[in-house]
């Protein structure tokens, strides 16, 4: 385990930038925090998860699939330099692990892995959450993790690449191990148990259709819940045609849209807001556990933060548990 003091950060990242393209938590001019290019704003490691999903580094909102120019088919090239992405909270890392599995399953998604392979993923934890709240250490799921102790960062490498990056840093004090262990033993998270209870209710078929009608009535179909969710992987595909060129691209899609499931003949198995809202929650809390062995909501809270009408997954789960639990 290594140690980084705040005054060492600039040099640390400058060294990394010689090999990798940096994506770091930064503060944008209006106070929004994102994981972005350090050219766009000062480093902002404190404050917890950023609102935009960190997995966008590998799966951007829109990206080229191929271009066919006068019959010449070209796929987009891999990045000139691999990415170094810092800013995944432990929950975000769980999301990334989940979509890594998803995109690798069956026909491997080469567009995703073109960005993902060779990238360094760095977690962020410790007492750097909102207002200094503790983010328990991830203990894995990444190449290295930065843990804010209160006055310095503990740096824990997990992969070969991670160990290489931190090799030159000074060693952490002996007490660090105990500190990390203490931070790991935490009381159960309220939202986590809420999501688990909601999942149980759905799987026991205890939630009536009328509930989904009520929730659906409050959905304005902004699609923000899907677009902010780090484990949402659905995408749409479009072709842009000009005289001799076709450009195929894909973009984040949303199961809250009618067109998401509408068939060519017009029939839609998810033809109402109630059904679509039910599906969105059901997919994360009931279908994915069956297919992937785990609930695919890792309690990051982004859908609740972006939803203009207060029907993110926590809010819905809370109502569900209060009424049917």
């Amino acid at each position, binding site marked *: 385990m290594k140690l980084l003091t705040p005054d060492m950060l600039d040099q640390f990242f400058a060294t990394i930038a010689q090999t990798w*393209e940096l*994506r770091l938590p930064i503060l*944008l*001019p*209006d*106070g*929004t*925090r*994102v994981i*972005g*290019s350090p*050219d*766009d704003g000062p480093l902002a490691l404190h404050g917890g998860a950023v*609102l*935009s999903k960190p997995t*966008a580094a590998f799966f*951007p*909102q*829109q*990206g080229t699939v191929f271009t066919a120019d006068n019959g010449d088919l070209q796929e987009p090239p891999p990045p000139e330099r691999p990415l170094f992405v810092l800013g995944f909270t432990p929950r975000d890392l769980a999301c990334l692990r989940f979509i890594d599995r998803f995109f690798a399953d069956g026909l491997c998604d080469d567009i995703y892995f073109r960005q993902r392979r060779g990238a360094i993923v760095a977690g962020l934890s410790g007492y750097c959450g909102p207002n200094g709240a503790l983010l328990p250490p991830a203990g894995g799921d990444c190449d290295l993790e930065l843990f804010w102790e209160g006055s310095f960062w503990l740096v824990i490498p997990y992969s070969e690449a991670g160990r290489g990056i931190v090799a030159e840093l000074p060693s952490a004090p002996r007490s660090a191990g105990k500190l990390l262990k203490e931070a790991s033993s935490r009381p159960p998270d309220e939202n986590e148990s809420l999501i688990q209870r909601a999942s149980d209710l759905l799987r026991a078929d205890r939630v009536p259709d009328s509930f989904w009608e009520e929730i659906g*009535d*409050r959905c*304005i*179909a*902004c*699609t*923000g819940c899907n*677009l902010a969710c780090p484990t949402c992987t659905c995408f*749409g595909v*479009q072709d*842009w*045609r*000009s005289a001799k*060129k076709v*450009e195929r691209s894909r*973009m*984040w*899609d*949303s199961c809250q*849209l*009618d*067109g998401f499931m509408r068939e060519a003949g*017009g029939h839609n198995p998810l033809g109402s807001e109630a059904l679509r809202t039910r599906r969105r929650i059901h997919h994360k809390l009931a279908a994915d556990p069956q297919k992937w062995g785990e609930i695919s909501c890792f309690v990051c809270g982004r859908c609740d*933060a*972006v*939803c*203009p*009408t*207060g029907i993110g997954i926590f809010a819905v789960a809370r109502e569900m548990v209060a009424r049917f639990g």
Partner: protein
Amino acid sequence: MRGMKRTLTVCPYCGTGCTFYLVSDNGRLVGLEPSTTHPVSRGGLCVKGWNAFAFVHHPDRLTTPLIRRDGVLQPASWDEALDLVVEKLRDIQKRHGADAVMFASSAKATNEENYLLMKLARAVFGTNNIDHCARLCHSSTVTGLAETLGSGAMTNSISCFDQADAILVIGSNTTEQHPLIGSRILNAVRNGTRLIVADNRRIRLARHADLHLRHKNGSDVALLNGIMHVIIAEGLEDRTFIATRTENFAALAEAVADWSPERTAAATGLEAGEIIAAARLFAAAERGMIVYSMGITQHSHGVDNVRCVAALALLTGNVGRPGTGVNPLRGQNNVQGGCDMGALPDVYSGYQKVSDPLMREKFVGSWGVADLPASPGLPLTRAMDAASAGHLQAMFIMGENPMLSDPDQGHARNVLENLELLVVQDIFLTETAALADIVLPAACYAEKEGTFTNTERRVQRLRKAVEPPGEARADWEIICDLAERAGYGGMRYAGPGEVMEEIARLTPSYGGISYDRLDPHGLQWPCPDRDHPGTPVLHLERFTRGLGRFSPVVHRLPAELPDDRYPLVLTTGRSYFHWHTGTMTRRTHLLEREEPCSFIELHPDDAARIGVRNRDQLLVTSRRGEVRTEARVTTMVIPGVVFMPFHFVEGAANALTNNVLDPESSIPEFKVCAVRVEKLP
């Protein structure tokens, strides 16, 4: 532009004014991220906002000027195209007079661009013939509220929606057309705010309302008079407010005295009890807010509707406090700014009248011209008639698509095709641009700098994220170049920031606006000087005009009512997923997939009578024209009324609408005309 970059900017769709960061990678947009700190959007966006980057690099973008040669639009150089525009405009003006030319500005363009086109029309080409699509949406508001309150803008702020005890939404489908405001209303209702929705479509807000009033199309004056009758009859009016802050109350009381609940019920199709309940509910609120939009304004009596809305707020003392107010929701991202900048035939920026010699003197001096025209120019909606009567030979249209947005499409096409000169400056070859003699390719919102003013009068910075395609240029650059070529040296600016400095010097309400003050969340006008913090709520101590004025009105019926030949009322509007004529949204995959074709909503009773099922192909006919469209059988509409959005060129609602205008605001009656619906074999 190498590498990844984030650019803070303003959404180009509705007037709510949400902000987000455009994310670009090596000069191409790859997505966007909401601003988490913005006081309006608060980390959220609507579906159009989330997809607002997606049309920018579309291969249909115009990349070079086009000149019609041998009947075909052919690529040309900027020098050729701009010189030709100036030469032809000058020639037409020489032969037919300065007012033979009309300029259409754009509520999609920035404040600076609207100001500059206004200046170009007046200072360089010597005509007040300048207008923009505010004529089609809130001209009734500008007229009606100026008369009653003194300022034709939303009185309150978007944050006020969280503070109201009761909200009356009349003629606004807020969750679809101003989604981040509509969502505030939904949240307010969950927190205990009472909601009255007056709109005969069963819009989303209606599902959450305490009262849903499904009154007949065009009966708003009757409804509001009836509500005011009950309030006065039951002594629920705010007498202190009326006595200290208003004038002409006696005339209002007399005008509504006859509007008993029974008479109102007969005129509106409602139950008397509904009118009484609405009056009591609204009058009982400590903070009562009225929200309205096109359902109020787009009538041949749109100004009268607005007068009634203002009167109801005055009667109940609901102006000049947080959580209250008369709140017209402006449609376009910068329609408020387009009006503020004087892209209107009768005023300079800041609503300073062209007919006022002192104002003319001020602008003559500042712009360095010999004189300026004194009589108001043509409103956009009257320009079409003027052209067909031979009084107008040329139109210069920046970023508007009247072929789809104007009423009576056949008439509009006929006029545009027969102009001696049609110049269109736009980002795509719209249906209107396709008819042009000269087409000028413009940069879109993501490719230029400037400011937009949202519906709550918040002036915000727009920033350039990527380069425009090909040779396309920002509207402001094109306008300044035209001025230069026309021999006018007074439009040389280093950038839009310098244009804003000039605007601030000449426009009292924008006096304190400058780019260095607009970060991060803009300023709300009136902002008269550099130390002024901006104004979230208007009319606090006194109205802009002094006292609030009750302007009683007489109920008038819409110009065209159903009869045996055309038995249904057609009302038009927009869908959530498309924006106006679809120039941008129909080139955005997810939005176009969601709403891919023209449709008409009709009630199951009407559908059964005509023998129509969902998704049948229909022929809809009015006295102006006919269109094919798809049936959407739904209880969203009431029996006898059908609804069509106007986005679709194939099945254009405005081939049917009635080009009858409000006599004062010249707004067309988009909300009521008579049609016949038949099933196609």
